[in-house]
């Protein structure tokens, strides 16, 4: 028989909220776990009435979706929280944003709509923008072309189980080269496959197919995440919840 703590079970989740946030500046060096710790503490400082799991080791109800890698910035990280008292999403957004470091910015908070499906089902691709300081468009464009022309580009990727060969090409749904202020920019849409193909892997692939070797570390920013449709567009994963809310407003309690 499983042992249970004395006393009543924790109060149930009465509302789920979905949050989009950005990690910018120095905090692009934060890992997923660093951010998770920071978010949990900020939720406590912001006095958000979190719902907790039952048992001897109660945890706040938070689910994180596919985190951007350590070293990459992002304008589109997502998480979902469960609260034990109803909250006004905008008031919660402001309170949480104020409790977080300046380089973690809470961009949006919406209530999860009933019966609209999970957030995870609405995300299968990332839109990336990679700045390549010291690289010109004239160098990047042919490399991207060569990469896209290939059927398979195998790169060695460091995983928990050591080095492993991964095809970087198959995950890339689209890529293009641009230039801003003399610095080449790589735009791409990358499918979230397993094992994950990250901007670093695509850059390794560019080195493999076209010997493109940036003299300085590139800076990747995830611009968006969502479901990739046949036209190559990535849909806003909070769209369905936001649409549902505009039809039924006016019943929220304040934070």
């Amino acid at each position, binding site marked *: 028989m499983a042992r249970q703590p004395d006393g009543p079970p924790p109060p149930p989740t009465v509302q789920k909220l979905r949050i989009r946030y950005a990690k910018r500046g120095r*905090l692009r060096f934060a890992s997923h776990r660093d951010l998770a710790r920071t978010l949990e503490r900020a939720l406590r400082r912001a006095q958000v009435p979190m719902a907790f799991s039952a048992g001897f080791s109660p945890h706040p109800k938070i689910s994180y979706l596919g985190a951007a890698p*350590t070293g990459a910035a992002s304008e589109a990280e997502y998480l979902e929280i469960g609260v034990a008292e109803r909250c006004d999403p905008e008031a919660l957004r402001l309170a949480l944003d104020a409790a977080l470091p300046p380089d973690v910015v809470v961009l949006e908070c919406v209530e999860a709509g009933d019966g609209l499906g999970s957030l995870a089902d609405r995300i299968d691709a990332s839109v990336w923008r990679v700045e390549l300081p010291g690289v010109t468009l004239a160098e990047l464009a042919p490399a991207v072309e060569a990469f896209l022309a290939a059927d398979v580009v195998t790169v060695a990727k460091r995983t928990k189980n050591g080095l492993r060969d991964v095809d970087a090409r198959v995950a890339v749904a689209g890529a293009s080269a641009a230039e801003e202020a003399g610095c080449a920019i790589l735009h791409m849409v990358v499918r979230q496959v397993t094992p994950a193909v990250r901007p670093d892997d695509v850059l390794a692939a560019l080195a493999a197919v076209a010997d493109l070797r940036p003299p300085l570390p590139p800076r990747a920013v995830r611009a968006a995440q969502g479901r990739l449709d046949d036209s190559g567009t990535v849909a806003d994963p909070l769209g369905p919840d936001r649409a549902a809310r505009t039809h039924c407003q006016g019943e929220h309690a304040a934070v």
Partner: protein
Amino acid sequence: MTGESLYPVLEPLLAQIQKPIQYVGGELNAQVKPWDAAAVHWALMYPDAYEVGLPNQGVMILYEVLNERPDALAERTYAVWPDLAGLMRANGVPQFTVDGHRAVADFDLLGVSFATELGYTNLLEALDLAGIPLHAVDRDETHPVVVAGGHAAFNPEPVSDFVDCAVLGDGEQAVGDITDVVKAWKAEGRPGGRTELLARLARVDGVYVPRFYAVSYRADGAIAAVTRTRDDVPARVGKRTVMDLDEWPYPKQPLVPMAESVHERMSVEIFRGCTRGCRFCQAGMITRPVRERTITGIGSMVDAGLRATGYEEVGLLSLSSADHSEIGQLAKELADRYEGTNTSLSLPSTRVDAFNVTLANELSRNGRRSGLTFAPEGGSERIRRVINKTVSKEDLVRTVSTAYANGWRQVKLYFMCGLPTETDEDVLEIAELAVEVIRAGREASGQKDVRCTVSIGGFVPKPHTPFQWAGQASAETIDNRLRLLRQAINADRRIGRSIGLRYHDGKPGVIEGLLSRGDRRVGRVIERVWRDGGKFDGWSEHFSFDRWTTAAAEELAAFGVDLDWFTTRERTEHEILPWDHLDSGLDKEWLWEDWQEALSEEEVADCRWTPCYDCGVCPTNGTEIQIGPTGRSLLPLTVV
């Protein structure tokens, strides 16, 4: 320009290393003050990895105390892992602070907190990365003053080549006095250069400047004399003691890192000092007398700290927390206050006492119930009398069974191996104890799944304790006893599988012993080890025993002494010890008597309850035991 941020040159390197978050700063409650607004700039270093150094209370306290002064600025720096250190050297990036990413060499002072001697090689690495001359004698007035603090600073002789001064005792007030001296000297146009500054610092209470003391040696290797070379510095340097902890409620705004650290909780120090008189315990000896924070002072620190951090666990820190005169009431009232908030309170390892189980039950009422930790330290009743930590076997087993009966499933027991007079039998009794604890625990709880973890480390004799004269057990002795213990625990698998054994081999302890009781001659060994690539000696993957033994053999040979001379050799009563001119307040005669009583297995009482002025600390240092109860209660928090 001094004080300029190095972040732009550091950032490209961060993309190429492990755990870059530890170098970017910006922790919650961190501060970056404008450089030019401060007259005195302090870089504070904890000489180990960020994850170990960040939670350090001493650094956090001094960081805040100094930054509260409008004329001072304090930033933090930690030991840099070899992956980044290599890139920094290749790219000409010097040791930097994590707050403003300023070059450590730009600061007026580099304060280094030594909780353990195994951080010494990391000091050398940081000085080298900072571009500060390794040897204090090679520095001029443009270089920071390197100040050692922390418990290891009570014998700074092994690092006396590398530090300019050491602060003995509590730092809260000392850093203010040092700041005043540096500020005045700078304002006067740095008269007399570095020597004059150090001479002024040597006259600050609690500050020891090694270069103003000469050490001579006898033919047998022992110290002949330690004499001061200027008559305007004290012949003996005394320690600093902060009285009235309620006036120093630091840290008020504890730092909260994004990176993972070794302590994922905030800590409130509920008292400082300890008079239990455990003979192995340097902390208990050098931090006397006991000074309690009041229940209300603690209550407001817990409240302010939780609001400032968002932590869900608060550790009530001290050397023996259950001994606080108001602990029962404190535990109950804090648990009442945080009812329903998933906030848990914890005590560090406690003495073996049934009362502590009651306390732990109360403290864990609102949050996660992790394991309970007791520290009997010695395996047999006999050895526990030697170390003056007396508890009978029956009481020990009864206490731990009570814990199991109260729903705790995991109990950790801390022990030491290699204590003075110890035999194999003393250590083997740990196995008997653990087996009895599991048997009694299964019976008391009616459950099979109770677990006991035995955690055991090698004993290292420390300065300013009754065991400062003891011969340290060799690594072979420790390793052999641990092997016998492991066999004994595993002899009966039906019980043995409920017992976990965690231990460290005896080798790092021998080096810690060399560095703890070493004298100035050991400096050459430290430097040689660092030059041969030694750093992060507290980490088994970096520590190399062979590197240390080779360096010790080669560097000490010229002096006619060796590693064993510093470690396994028992000292005689009148030998001049390297730290005799540094005054922890304890009378050497009292320590010697206590050492003799240890050898004859006699206990000594705690002076908190049986008034006694024997040890020498009270009242000669102007200090007195400060304990409650105050009769006050925690008021309910107002709802915001």
